[in-house]
């Protein structure tokens, strides 16, 4: 397999001590096994996420993502950018589309970037890590390193929103994308069909509208249980955090007994590729994935 190299945009939540730090741990281990090199873009900044709009407006948000592109272009010319966070990827992609198609916005964005001594040229594309896996490597290549297939474990593939809409992965349907199920099967697990695969977890409104968001989360987890899943797997750090963290809150308020682990695809792959529990970031959960931890000890 040819070695692949990318300019890496980890995003705020993947930093040390942040809410998705175990995502990054497992991504590093997974990339290592797949011989994919990801090199952090020097001095990258926050993308503004999907909640930055109210105060940030349009141009300051465009400038934030354009700065990341400009840094990648300057320090890592010719390399594609890869993001692991759904919101980071979406923001970068949207901003690129917006400024590449508007001379006015391009000019204004570059005027803002000039204040930081930078320039956006539009030569760098951005990919999500799952696109790199599926489109650049392919399922066959992803299957090769499997030494501990996740046999007998049933997963609910929770795609959520922002890797799915509005751009999607690999041209798949918005209503029923199957890439995550295929990834689960690639590493030997079983993907259960269930009806909340692309339901919104509430996103940033988990903070501001907890009742409304927790209704969403309850629907997702209960449907996963109803369809026989033992664990949920997702490509999005905010989906992971919301769906895992608030289960105890929902239990407190509604007397439910939700206790389903929520994993990243990269953790499944790291475990299947023979990684340790620590390499897979399995110590980073409030609801432990004990069956995966057991596999790592075999």
């Amino acid at each position: 397999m040819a070695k692949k190299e990318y300019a890496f945009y980890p995003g705020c939540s993947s930093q040390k001590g942040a809410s998705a730090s175990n995502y990054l741990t497992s991504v590093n281990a997974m990339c290592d096994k797949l011989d994919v090199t990801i090199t952090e873009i020097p001095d990258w900044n926050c993308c503004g996420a999907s909640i930055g709009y109210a105060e940030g407006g349009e141009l300051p948000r465009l400038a934030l993502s354009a700065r990341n592109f400009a840094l990648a272009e300057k320090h890592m010319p010719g390399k594609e950018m890869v993001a692991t966070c759904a919101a980071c990827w979406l923001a970068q992609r949207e901003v690129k589309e917006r400024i590449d198609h508007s001379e006015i916005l391009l000019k204004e964005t570059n005027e803002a970037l000039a204040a930081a001594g930078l320039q956006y040229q539009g030569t760098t594309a951005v990919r999500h890590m799952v696109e790199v896996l599926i489109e650049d490597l392919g399922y066959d290549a992803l299957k090769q390193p499997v030494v501990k297939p996740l046999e007998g474990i049933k997963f609910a593939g929770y795609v959520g929103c922002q890797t799915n809409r509005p751009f999607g992965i690999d041209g798949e349907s918005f209503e029923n994308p199957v890439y995550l199920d295929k990834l689960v099967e690639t590493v030997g697990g079983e993907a259960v069909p269930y009806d909340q695969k692309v339901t919104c977890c509430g996103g940033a409104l988990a903070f501001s509208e907890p009742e409304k968001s927790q209704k969403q989360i309850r629907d997702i987890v209960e449907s996963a249980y109803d369809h026989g899943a033992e664990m949920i797997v997702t490509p999005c750090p905010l989906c992971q955090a919301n769906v895992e963290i608030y289960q105890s809150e929902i239990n407190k308020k509604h007397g439910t007994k939700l206790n389903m682990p929520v994993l990243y695809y990269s953790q499944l792959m790291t475990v299947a590729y023979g990684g340790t529990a620590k390499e897979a970031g399995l110590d980073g959960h409030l609801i432990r994935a004990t069956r995966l931890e057991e596999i790592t000890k075999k």
Partner: protein
Amino acid sequence: MSQQAIPYTNDFLREVEKNVEEGHWVKMCMQCGVCAGSCPLGPAWEHPPQEIFMMIRAGKREEVLTSDSMWMCTSCYNCVVRCPRQLPITHIMHGLANYAHRLGLAPKGQPTRETARLFWNSLVKTGRVNELKFSLALYFKDGFVQGVKNALNMQAIGFGLMKAKRLNPLEILGGHGVKDQSGLKAMIAKAREIEDRKKGFSA
């Protein structure tokens, strides 16, 4: 008794087209309501998107800009991918919320408005979001007593996250950030200056 008819104008539509992000799409709405039926928080919208679009065309400036409806958007993009006219509804809602916020017309204390403001302030301070300070600011946004209550309510989750190394108490001392802070701040200030000039906001 005579009642004077209010003359019909489309001044507000023009204002939205000029000043609101992606506002030029509003007139394309054909009132099918697929957006309303596709929204995860649909029932929470006093005026679902298609209604907001018609209200803009009907010149209902104050009703639209003081509404808390667009603050219900979770950015899930379900409306965008299902809209038969392909309106970027998520962005129009964000744009309207931003416009109402900047004009000071958005509902005071609206929780998503407050959350969004705190998030942005956190990220511009260092260039990267400080999750600890952002969470604490959120807990304490309604005053000290409520803040302590909120923090106590969430303490089990907080300690769980710390144990899992997903929340670092030392972030309170500063935490992560970009190296070129002055460049980043100058860039954002410049972007805001250009946008304010274009959209007629006072600084």
